[in-house]
């Protein structure tokens, strides 16, 4: 039982924009004043900003790919922030690939309370859930990789859409996932023969008719038909390639009439023909995106400094390895997907990196509706998630942002729009892109707002005059009404939950899948679905029926 008094509350989902008001919390939720018993503890939040806890809609924090990355970069771990073990605190390391316990402490320490693990292979989903189990404090969702699943592709090739949807539903529950992830549709499959899928309407390697466009439209339709709370979450083809803005806009056409979430849009908004002519095409991408109201996206912004690129876009990673001559990891997963890992450093003197840095900010500034674009760095691809406050600072303070632009190479200025953009985000808009918007997109009705009934995930920040790094050191962070962070320090470690969905499917589909599975996989079918016991505090979120 808790009362937060005198704070300046930003709760955009409920139309509250910087109003000084009290918040009452009981049994882990926001309650009405009248419902709060006497003798509740009080937090004095006068002069402070009160926001719903942050929701990261796209991050890579758990599972086989991330764990693979950890093994590739011991030198990063050496230099990473150290977490000492303590009475209630596990030892750990920060850095680009934080260890599981440190991940929870780092997110909570910033005021973020829900994270969406964006890429899970079904075959190793058990591993992902074991790691999510070991991430304290924050609540989690996870998305299962589907756009290169051969069961699905084979069925699409055969025109058996209905059966494909049944299989997808079964697989989502087998993985104990929350939604569908599509990465480089067709391209990851092609990479298994060393190829890629660069053209949306060309049949993919090993197939006669199935195209990336067909996979995209089919999965988007399935997410709608199954009533998944979050739409298909799509990493478009041709990530990172100069000129790829055209693919992105074409992808949006393919998605007409469907809901969809486009991941890390920054990596998909480039013009030019090659590295030497690469430029920003954020304006055209923003325009096409804004016109198509069924779409949401996240920025995938890049920050100068260390990063580790981790993606199911295997061919892109091989290319990056050949370009940088540094380390490369690759893991193809039978029948399903793959991942590639390349540690990388974004440098402000590098022309290409300068354009990338600008594009992320441009998209955030050009897309007017903050309910549709969310703050991410596609951690750890664009930079560590604990650096989100740096991006917030640049969004809120145009002068500071322009000072950063001045540091870019001269040649970059002609390729980007950022120098001419003056927009400044308000605190309310920041609350939307970091919390209310992603919560709504994920379909988590009890997150991202501070109305009665919401989970009491609250971040309280001391106001800073220039909003500089306002978000780096919350004064208090509450998770489910428990004070977990005080003055930037983790004080109380609570468990988080895992939200999952159980889409409707015909039980008979299992008999269709079993013999196929036994033919192409290498384990016992009984061991494939993840046991519920693996998940810490699972909570099933209902699938709605959003289709006719």
């Amino acid at each position: 039982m808790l009362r937060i008094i005198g704070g300046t509350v930003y709760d955009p989902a409920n139309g509250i924009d910087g109003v000084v008001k009290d918040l009452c919390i009981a049994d882990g939720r926001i309650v009405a004043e009248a419902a709060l018993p006497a003798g509740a503890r009080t937090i004095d939040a006068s002069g402070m900003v009160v926001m719903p806890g942050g929701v990261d809609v796209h991050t890579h924090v758990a599972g086989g790919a991330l764990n693979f990355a950890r093994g590739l970069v011991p030198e990063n771990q050496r230099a990473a922030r150290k977490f000492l073990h303590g009475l209630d605190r596990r030892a750990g390391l920060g850095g680009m690939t934080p260890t599981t316990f440190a991940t929870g402490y780092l997110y909570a320490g910033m005021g973020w309370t829900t994270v969406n693990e964006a890429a899970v292979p079904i075959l190793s989903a058990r591993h992902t859930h074991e790691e999510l189990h070991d991430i304290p404090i924050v609540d989690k969702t996870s998305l299962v990789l589907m756009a290169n699943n051969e069961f699905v592709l084979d069925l699409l090739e055969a025109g058996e859409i209905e059966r494909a949807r049944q299989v997808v539903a079964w697989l989502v529950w087998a993985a104990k996932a929350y939604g569908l992830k599509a990465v480089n549709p067709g391209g990851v499959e092609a990479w298994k023969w060393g190829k890629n899928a660069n053209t949306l309407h060309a049949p993919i390697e090993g197939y006669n008719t199935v195209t990336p466009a067909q996979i995209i439209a089919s999965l988007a339709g399935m997410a709608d038909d199954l009533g998944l709370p979050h739409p298909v979450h799509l990493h478009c083809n041709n990530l990172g390639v100069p000129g790829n803005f055209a693919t992105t806009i074409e992808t949006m056409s393919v998605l007409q009439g469907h809901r969809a979430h486009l991941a890390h849009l920054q990596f998909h908004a480039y013009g030019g023909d090659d590295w030497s002519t690469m430029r920003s095409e954020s304006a055209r991408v923003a325009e096409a995106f804004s016109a198509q109201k069924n779409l949401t996206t996240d920025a995938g912004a890049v920050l100068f400094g260390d990063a580790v690129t981790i993606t199911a876009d295997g061919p892109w990673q091989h290319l990056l390895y050949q370009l940088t001559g540094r380390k490369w990891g690759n893991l193809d997963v039978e029948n399903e997907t793959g991942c590639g890992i390349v540690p990388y450093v974004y440098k402000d003197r590098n022309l290409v990196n300068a354009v990338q840095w600008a594009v992320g900010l441009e998209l955030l500034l050009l897309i007017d509706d903050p309910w549709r674009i969310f703050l991410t760095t596609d951690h750890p691809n664009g930079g560590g998630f604990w650096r989100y406050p740096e991006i917030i600072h640049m969004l809120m303070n145009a002068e500071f942002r322009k000072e950063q632009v001045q540091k870019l190479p001269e040649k970059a200025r002609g390729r980007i729009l950022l120098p001419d953009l003056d927009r400044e985000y308000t605190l309310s808009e920041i609350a939307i892109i970091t919390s209310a918007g992603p919560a709504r997109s994920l379909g988590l009705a009890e997150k991202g707002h501070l109305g009665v009934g919401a989970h009491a995930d609250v971040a309280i920040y001391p106001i800073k005059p220039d909003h500089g790094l306002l978000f780096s050191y919350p004064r208090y962070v509450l998770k489910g009404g428990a004070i977990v962070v005080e003055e930037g320090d983790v004080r109380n470690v609570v468990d988080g939950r895992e939200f999952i969905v159980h889409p409707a499917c015909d039980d008979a589909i299992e008999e269709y899948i079993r013999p196929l599975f036994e033919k192409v996989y290498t384990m016992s079918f009984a061991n494939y679905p993840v046991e519920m016991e693996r998940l810490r505090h699972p909570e099933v979120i209902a699938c709605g029926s959003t289709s006719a």
Partner: protein
Amino acid sequence: MGGKITCTLGEVKNRADFIMYWGGNPAECHPRHFTKYTLTPKGKFVPEGRKARTMVLVDIRETPSAKAADIFLQIRPGKDFEVATTLRAMVKGQPVNPALVSETGLTVERLQDIVDRMKRARFGVIFFGMGVSMTRGKHMNSGAILNLTAEMNAFTKFVCMPMRGHGNVTGADVVLRWTTGYPFGVDLSRGYPRFNPGEFSTVDLLVRGDNDAALVLGADPGATMPQPGIEHLARIPTIVLDPKVTHTSRLARVHITTAVTGVSAPGTSYRMDEIPLPLRPALTSPYPTDEEVIRRIRRAVAAKPAWTAAPSRMMAIA
């Protein structure tokens, strides 16, 4: 710098047409490998099975695995690094010294044939065993094969995978990485994880006598360590948790019999390709599981007075 280019075993089964085993004897040490993953199964994209695959065995002596091989390359002991490094150069069309190549037991011509076959493959895989990772050069031998594999991807699809030893080494590696950031040889004495093979790896610590106590679980260093390491284990307080009385148990202060994981104790085993498999116990056991014993030890330690004046204190949660 190279890296690790790999896949899950089903990818090998369904696609590989060139399989190389280097420094391992799967016929005896991984007896189901050929039939489950690499040679005989009908793969989704290799429907003709064995006929469509070429198997190359590289080893210092002809083991029973050679019977299954299409090509057997016998190299001289201690020359794995030289052969792999030579292959790296030849794959790129770089010059090598034929006389020095021949000292490995193989000729340039023989190696060129292998390089050509590798490049012609649709999907090549190298499995490397302890003959590579445990002989002179150690991690550098493994590194040579990892780099060769990464570089082959400029020509065709190529992967590699270590043939793991018994027990759940892969599982320990995976769990240590997610909890500490490092796969093995993790030091926590400064309160946070540190990694430095040679400084914190088991054999080195024991041989130098750098530790003053030991808890041994699921391993038998008393049988495998060099003599100075074994003597050190006998000198210091050593505690063993194992279903059986082992060599280490015999020189330990305390031996606690625990239930057999996978038979009587549940858990997760990670396969050599890091796929997690649930262990469903079939039998009950009168003995506690390793997990129960460790939790009880931790509770007992946490109940003791704190030994540091510093803010960080021992875990109280069992």
